[in-house]
């Protein structure tokens, strides 16, 4: 395989994984925040 083809494979895979990882992390953070807020709401309601 030529160096250009191998380079293109590395770049394409690399950039895709960077995007996918950070996108999953963003989704993960959103879910985590949602759960935490629900928990806080429940505690507040329980406190009343």
């Amino acid at each position: 395989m030529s160096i250009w083809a191998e380079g293109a494979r590395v770049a394409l895979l690399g950039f895709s994984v960077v995007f996918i990882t950070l996108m999953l992390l963003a989704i993960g953070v959103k879910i985590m925040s949602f759960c935490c807020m629900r928990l806080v709401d429940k505690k507040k309601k329980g406190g009343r």
Partner: protein
Amino acid sequence: MDYSLFSALLIKTGIVHLTAGQVVMWFIGFFFIFLAIKKDFEPLLLVPIGFSIFLVNMPLAPLTGEGELIELFFRYGLETEIVPCLIFLGVGALTDFGPLIANPKMLLLGAAAQLGVYIAFFGAIFFGFNLKEAASIGIIGGADGPTSIYLATALAPHMIGMVAVAAYSYMSMVPLIQPPIMRLFTSEKERKIRMKQLRSVSRTEKIIYPIAATIIICLLTPPAAPLMGLFMIGNLFRESHVVERLLKTSQNELLNIVTIFLGLAVGSTMKAEVFLKPQPIFIFILGLIAFAFSTVGGILLAKLMNLFLKEKINPLIGAAGVSAVPMAARVAQKVGQEADPKNHLLMHAMGPNVAGVIGTAVAAGMFLNLLK
């Protein structure tokens, strides 16, 4: 007078062994020290790097041979990859992920700002570097010194000095390089966009974040685990509020100690016979290209996101997706305030800024995954 004794003595001194190349390197070392002291460019690193360049280019000095002082710093600090990871521990202990947790969309801007890494990667291939060297040069575009050093150590150890100096030079020149690019790719109207104040983030979220992020990142990119693992444990020290001593050590003493070792070890790779070749010039040019495209990548994705979002993002904060923390975020704030003095973008820009650190570490992990 006994001339043979005199000549025997003379030959033992460095004077007769001094080469023109070494003197040139002294001036380069002086130049770094000058930049650090007079211009305040990354002084914590450029002072030890500059002095180390000066030291290792002293003829006959027992510093860089096997088992000698600076060679030991290099072998145990850099070759083992301990120092860049420990720096990440300290950086993690100093990082507030609050703005990122409050607005996780900003993580995408950190990903887009890795564009320059891959553009420079192709540029380096064009200039005749092999894939491993090209990856080590490309990562400069992430504007993250420890990650650049970490990757260069693993893939192209002969280039550590050049890559590190290019990375730290451009990081220190963020306020000079980024603003013209930011103005070129944004309109006055876009620069005036005001963003809604970020919500406050609970302590629980801040504690869970480093654990969740470690799981996601390490599962998807295992080679990024050493950097990301220490980055996140440093952050957990900060957010847990129960290990004050460890936090203070990570933020201060440990970070300062490893910075000294890093500076000395990086400078030691810049010996005249290695550095005075056309290669460093190409690396500096490619580093600048990488940096510029990373800035553009972040801005363009922010503009693209604005096509779909109800609450618009100021595209200037996309430029902060390059890692250089917190300088890139400050630059976004400054350029934003030129258009609207009452617009406060700093906290918004901190989100993409720390996302850039993660993005660069993942990009480096992928290079390691595919090329090592």
